[in-house]
């Protein structure tokens, strides 16, 4: 039995007095792809931002590799091996692809690691190498998403948190992005915690799935039963 690399215990989160997430227990096993589903406003993004340290938690704890990291700054989390790709455009849109990738490795103390990682990213997403000197904001939506994931990989993270990587992408691109997530998971051994709306294309790549509703877990386990969409709709 593998042990969890990232874990929340009774994590509560929200903005000010608005409590969005109440007491969530979540465990990301080392090496798995955990899919987090739920309708808009169910609290998925808030949960991710709180785990990563962009929002102060309102209660509970977060553990990484068995150590408590509750309320730590994003900078410390990044340095420790957790990377986050926020929803929408997780890139700097006025800067070139190459500068974005360089910035992705900002927190890396060992600069000697970076060229190899850059090669890995270019191998995963050859289009980024082709477009290295293009301004990020002028890339297509799919390329921007690849760049965002590529930036996160420049840290050499052990855990990758993805907040709706498929948002705003055409179905064939979503498939492409999901494929690269599988590759990252298999080849680099990165554990992945992913929030998604696109159930059809994200379920097949998930090791396990969790459904969140009004700030609480309503389903946890095998992704297979959720492929029945009408049944899933009842859960939403």
């Amino acid at each position, binding site marked *: 039995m593998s042990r969890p690399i990232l874990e929340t215990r009774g994590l509560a989160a929200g903005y000010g007095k608005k409590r969005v997430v109440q007491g969530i227990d979540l465990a990301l096993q080392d090496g798995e792809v955990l899919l987090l589903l739920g309708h808009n406003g169910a609290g998925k993004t808030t949960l991710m931002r709180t785990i*990563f340290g*962009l929002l102060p938690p309102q209660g509970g704890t977060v553990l990484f590799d068995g150590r408590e990291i509750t309320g730590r*700054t*994003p*900078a410390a*989390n*990044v*340095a420790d091996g957790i990377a*986050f790709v*926020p929803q929408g455009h*997780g*890139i*700097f*849109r*006025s*800067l070139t692809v190459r*500068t974005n990738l*360089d*910035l*992705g490795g*900002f*927190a890396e103390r060992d600069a000697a690691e970076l060229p190899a990682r850059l090669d890995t990213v270019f191998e995963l997403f050859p289009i980024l190498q082709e477009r290295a000197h293009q301004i990020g*904001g002028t890339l297509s939506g799919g390329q921007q998403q690849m760049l965002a994931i590529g*930036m996160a990989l420049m*840290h050499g993270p052990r855990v990758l948190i993805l907040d709706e990587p498929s948002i705003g992408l055409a179905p064939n691109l979503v498939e492409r992005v999901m494929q690269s997530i599988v590759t990252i998971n298999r080849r680099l051994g990165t554990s992945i915690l992913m929030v998604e709306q696109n159930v059809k294309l994200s379920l097949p790549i998930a090791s396990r799935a969790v459904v969140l509703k009004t700030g609480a877990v309503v389903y946890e386990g095998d992704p297979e039963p959720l492929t029945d969409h009408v049944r899933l709709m009842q859960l939403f």
Partner: protein
Amino acid sequence: MDLLFQLLVTGVINGSHYALLGIGFGLIFATTRIVHFAYGPIFTFAAYIGWLVAGGMGLPVWLGLLAAIAGAVILGVGSYLLIYRPLEVRNAPVLVPLIASLGLYIVLENLVGILFGSGVRVVEDLDYGIHFVGPAFFTSIHVWQVASLLLVGGALAAFLRWTRYGKAILAMTDDPEMARVIGIDTVRVTLLVFAIGSAVAAVPAVLILLKDGASTHMGFAAVFMAFVAVIVGGVGSLKGAAAGGFLLGLVQSLGLWQIPTEWQNSIAFVLLFAMIMLRPEGLFGVRWR
């Protein structure tokens, strides 16, 4: 025609001055979104420190410049740490730092007057050449004003483009939240930006000291012209701040062809107004969404 040529030369010289001011102010504004009015009196302070060293103590001008830069950096970083940072921690609305900076502006401006007296301070016995190009003339100091823009602007551009922290500044200008996501310590970057921005202001300050002398109220025009240059050029763009300043200098100077000299500020105002109405994102600004 000769007059027009001379005005063009003057425009380039004054434009370089405004461009440098705009670059320093714009760097701080774009990265932190703080309207740092105290930039004006810090500029004045730098000029007086330069005068103290080069004029008062009779040391070489380059030492005066170094002292001016050091003084400006201390004041700039100090304003962030003592004034703006506590407001930022409290999550104060955007207007609060702006009002605080007006307070700081008036404190520093009058402190200059109290410390150095209100007369104009000049560095005596300066030996500089006068050059002629066709019908137009200019002095070595004018040459330095243009050269300093090229040097400082070039160095800054290279720093932003090639160094780790330079890129971090660009990142924070683009999207502060995203900068945190990739692990940038935004407070450290802000301190750096205040240091660099203030240091940049010290250069035109010392050159103005050599050219016209230092006077206690020159900070207001400096920060106002810098602000206008940034808005005209486009917030968040180094190139824009430089171009905005340059345009401002040229328009003011060429305006003199037909308009009496005392209306210079009004010309700047018309340029600003036209820009805000016609192209609010500025010359080099971008409108994302």
